[in-house]
């Protein structure tokens, strides 16, 4: 077991859902899927995005894709054209999640 970034073995993509950010993450093996299911709890993701996500976090599982999908509400400063943020659509939040370090 060593501390590694999720980016070393996982993939991610993100975009907006209103004022929320939709962050999907997936892996290539069953073992890694069990790992991210255990590590990426709603609380852990909310903590990781403490500087970005001001609302609640919901987690969905898609086993066929070995994927987890997170909805991070109130994360885009109003969302769409109402936001003043550089990343008003959460395009970079997938990469932000991949920066998390886990024991693997």
């Amino acid at each position, binding site marked *: 077991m060593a501390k590694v970034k999720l*980016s070393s073995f996982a*993939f*991610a*993509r*993100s*975009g*907006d*859902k*209103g*004022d929320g950010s*939709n962050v*999907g*993450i*997936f892996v*290539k093996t069953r073992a890694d899927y069990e790992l991210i299911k255990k590590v990426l709890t709603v609380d852990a993701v909310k903590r*990781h*995005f*403490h*500087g*970005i996500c001001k609302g609640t976090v919901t987690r*969905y*599982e*898609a*086993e*066929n*894709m070995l*994927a987890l*999908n997170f*909805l991070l509400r109130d994360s885009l*400063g*109003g*969302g*769409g*054209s*109402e936001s*003043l*943020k*550089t*990343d008003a659509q959460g*395009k*970079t939040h*997938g*990469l*932000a999640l*991949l*920066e998390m370090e886990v024991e693997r």
Partner: protein
Amino acid sequence: MRDKVLIGYGQGFWGDSILGPVRLVREGPLDYLALDYLAEVTMSIMQKLKGRNPKAGYATDFIAMLSRVLPEVHRKGIKVIANAGGVNPSACLDAVLDLAKKQGIKGLKVGIIEGDDILVRIPELLQSGHMLANMDDGRALSGVQDRILSANVYIGAFAVAECLRQGAQIVIGGRLTDPALVAGPMIHEFGWGPQDFDKLAAGTMAGHIAECGAQCTGGNFTGWRDVKDFVRIGYPIIEASPDGSFVVTKHEGTGGLINRETVISQLLYEMGDPNRYLGPDCTADFTSARIEEIGKDRVRLSAIKGGPATPTYKVSISYLNGFKTTGQLTVSGPDAVAKARLCAEIVWGRLALDGCTFEEHEKIVEIVGAGVCHEGIAKPTDPPEVVLRMGVKCNDEDKVDRFGMEIVPLVTSGPPGVTGFAGGRPKATDIVGYWPALLQKDQVKTRVRVEVT
């Protein structure tokens, strides 16, 4: 019935590269070319243009693109499906007919789908009890009724199929859903019905994968180091079969990458609940799909399950919601971050001296280069320079403009190393608010009209 239909997706959004559709037409076999030209904000801009000129209000980029490929499209019999009609499909129809006549193309059938634009019907709908409440927060639409800029229903794939059935080679819609541009041709080619939920779900899923163009062929892929030849990136082609299974691929010899990972990446994009992806024609269960690599740049999806659609259409309404502006300056090191922070304090302080203050949620300070996108996650560093980006929003246009005047003075009256002020003084612009709502399906009737050159 054909046992295989090739549907390319050449335009992922308004502003996507013109090379996408042009190369899909030129660089290999294709039966259909799907093109998305709309976004939430686009419709309000188009209504504004139409207000000034009754012949405007559609995506002129579509005409510019067609002018390059129409003879080839006509000769090869490629059918084009686009939501380029914006808020004025009939003007877009006229523009395509004009272009075809100019290029000497005879016998081209062009069809339009109307009925999505409900802007003028809002008072009548509200009066008859359709609340069009905001899906996000439940607010009543009557509160912003005098500020509405556009209102469009998301129309599904059966209207596209009907337009094709009437013989159109070019199908122009207004606010068609992005996946409908792909599912429509499948319904038409394979004779699927409104109760074929598994197949409709497959069409929806295929459309979802393709709807952002190159985002499923290696674009925006976190495994980007494996992607070859971004310059010549191939746009997606859905190789559809009558049983609902399909292959995601691209023209041979093009750049980019299609594998299980690039396809799953795009499936997750703005996905929401994977068990129940909502569309106007069905709900799709993304977790049911079998996803397998069957060759180089070929990923097959099968076994997709779907269910009935909801009794409502989604409606996209835009409205005026105040004013905003942002401005930026570059601040060099040493101590770039500290100096940028000081600059921001100076701006807010000077505005306050002049009686101009903003609430916390009305203003933003970003120090680009010091961890803006990954706020709270990126570790602090000492970059050689940063971009200070500041902005405000509120209902008072004069206050927003007043803010814009205090950015550039920092060059001579703040800390040293402030530069890079370009683009003039930031000016207040309209904030176009987005108002998602639901409307009972029986309130919407689509109409199809086909004309020939």
